[in-house]
């Protein structure tokens, strides 16, 4: 990997933040969706406990299932931001002047990836805190102790979610080289959530048990996939490739 100038990386990241601020669709997806989930899911649970009479102790599985939505968020939101970040530059023809600057391919790739990663992961962390606090407020009386935080949720938020987020961004880079508009890129990239939905469903029908150990295994697999995708996205994001082979 060529020497990376952190100042250049941050300049590109900051510029992308500036662009995202002007795009309402990105703002809604990145900020509103996690907040809705972090408030909506505990509210649903509060309703279930208070109006259906279901004992909270029997609902631990539901707690964990709700928690898994944060992994799905970590998969889905970067596809919107990442696709805009890469395909947006392509469709607005801003890539060539950027490539003509004294920056390396790695600096541009890293800068743009960080621009997609940071807002998502920060919003997931904030939403996770809101989720935990609300869940504890609504369920501690019934459960007898604050269910959150716990190792399962910590593994999911601090380990699996960032790895899923990175995977999603790397896929966005690869997809961006093959499509000509942001919407197509988003539609393709959003397919990344399929394995996580499948995992969620398998858990719901008790085919697999989603516990901390399973999450650690998933994290290991994700780390390997991320490394593979990192090299693939890096090979895709080369000046010559972008100018001559990107559609």
């Amino acid at each position, binding site marked *: 990997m060529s020497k990376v100038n952190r*100042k250049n990386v941050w300049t590109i990241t900051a510029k992308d933040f*500036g*662009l995202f601020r*002007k795009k309402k669709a990105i703002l809604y997806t990145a900020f509103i969706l996690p907040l809705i989930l972090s408030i909506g899911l505990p509210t649903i649970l509060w309703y279930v406990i208070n109006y259906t009479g279901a004992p909270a102790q029997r609902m631990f599985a539901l707690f964990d299932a709700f928690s898994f939505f944060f992994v799905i968020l970590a998969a889905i939101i970067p596809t919107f931001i990442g696709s805009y970040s890469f395909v947006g530059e392509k469709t607005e023809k801003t890539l*060539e*002047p950027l*490539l003509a600057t004294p920056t390396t391919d790695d600096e541009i790739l890293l800068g743009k990836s960080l621009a997609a990663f940071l807002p998502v992961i920060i919003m997931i962390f904030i939403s996770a805190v809101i989720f935990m606090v609300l869940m504890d407020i609504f369920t501690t009386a019934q459960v007898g102790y604050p269910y959150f935080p716990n190792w399962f949720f910590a593994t999911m938020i601090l380990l699996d979610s960032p790895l899923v987020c990175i995977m999603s961004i790397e896929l966005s880079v690869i997809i961006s080289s093959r499509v000509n508009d942001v919407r197509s890129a988003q539609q393709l990239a959003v397919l990344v959530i399929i394995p996580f939905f499948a995992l969620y469903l398998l858990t719901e029908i008790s085919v697999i048990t989603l516990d901390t150990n399973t999450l650690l295994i998933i994290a290991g697999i994700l780390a390997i996939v991320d490394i593979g995708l990192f090299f693939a996205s890096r090979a895709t994001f080369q*000046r010559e490739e972008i100018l001559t082979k990107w559609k």
Partner: protein
Amino acid sequence: MIKIENLTKKYGNLTAVDNLSLQIEEGEVFGLLGPNGAGKTTTIRVLCCLISKTSGNAMLNNLSIDDKKNRIEIRKIIGLLPENVGLYESLSAYKNLDFYAKLYQCTESQRKERIEYYLKMFDLWDKKYVATGTFSKGMKQKLALARVLVHDPKILFLDEPTANLDPEATKMVRDYILELKKEKRTIFLNTHMLDEAERICDRVGILKTQLLDIGSPEELRESLLGKKSVVEVDAITDNILKSIKSLGFEQISIDNNKMTINVNDPRKDNPSIIQAIQDAGGLVQSISELLPSLEDIYLKKVRRNE
């Protein structure tokens, strides 16, 4: 400042640029003329180290594009205006320039000073905080020129800078390029607009995958067509033709009462031609030097190569 030696770029089996060699001096404005697909943009991209060459070499300010270590250094001393201006349309004019100035490692004071200077130079200072998406094409092109200049590059690569502009905006952009010429910057201009090349460039090269010709517009005219004088007389007679041929001007073409005569130097030869016509009983109604346009030269060269 720019030395290109046997530069070739192939995309698979397709040769985009074939064995291009030329040299551009510091402060020179060089125009590369050619039809679409002639390899002009590819040449600029190779020189800007955006794409690799297949063979040959080029040196920019004594830095070889061959050496990977030089690529960042080369990009520091050049400014590229691509055919599509590529501005961030939701960002303001100021933020667009500031972003690029930062990537060229300009200090904060340099950025402030230069951005103000160029936005004022291009009459965009009043619009500095306006999103560029609202700008007219001409304003965008001016801002893109400011972007190219903000890091004070030694060499400018301008790829079709007036393409798709209306006549007023075209004139404005050309005037600014002429201003840059006064600043003694080396400018490499890609264009298929011949009047633009004629007006702006010190030398032009005609490219159609291969370099077909190179020189100043005047040199190209001479090399292709020689020097000619057009004389209009009241009536062309044998006596007049004999009289002119006796001066050694053998190649004369006639069109009604106009004669086109191949001469060595119109300024020196025209008076003796007038005298010869008068001596032969003719009346000269007008005499002028035939100046073929660059368009004539370009078309001849390109068609000859087809």
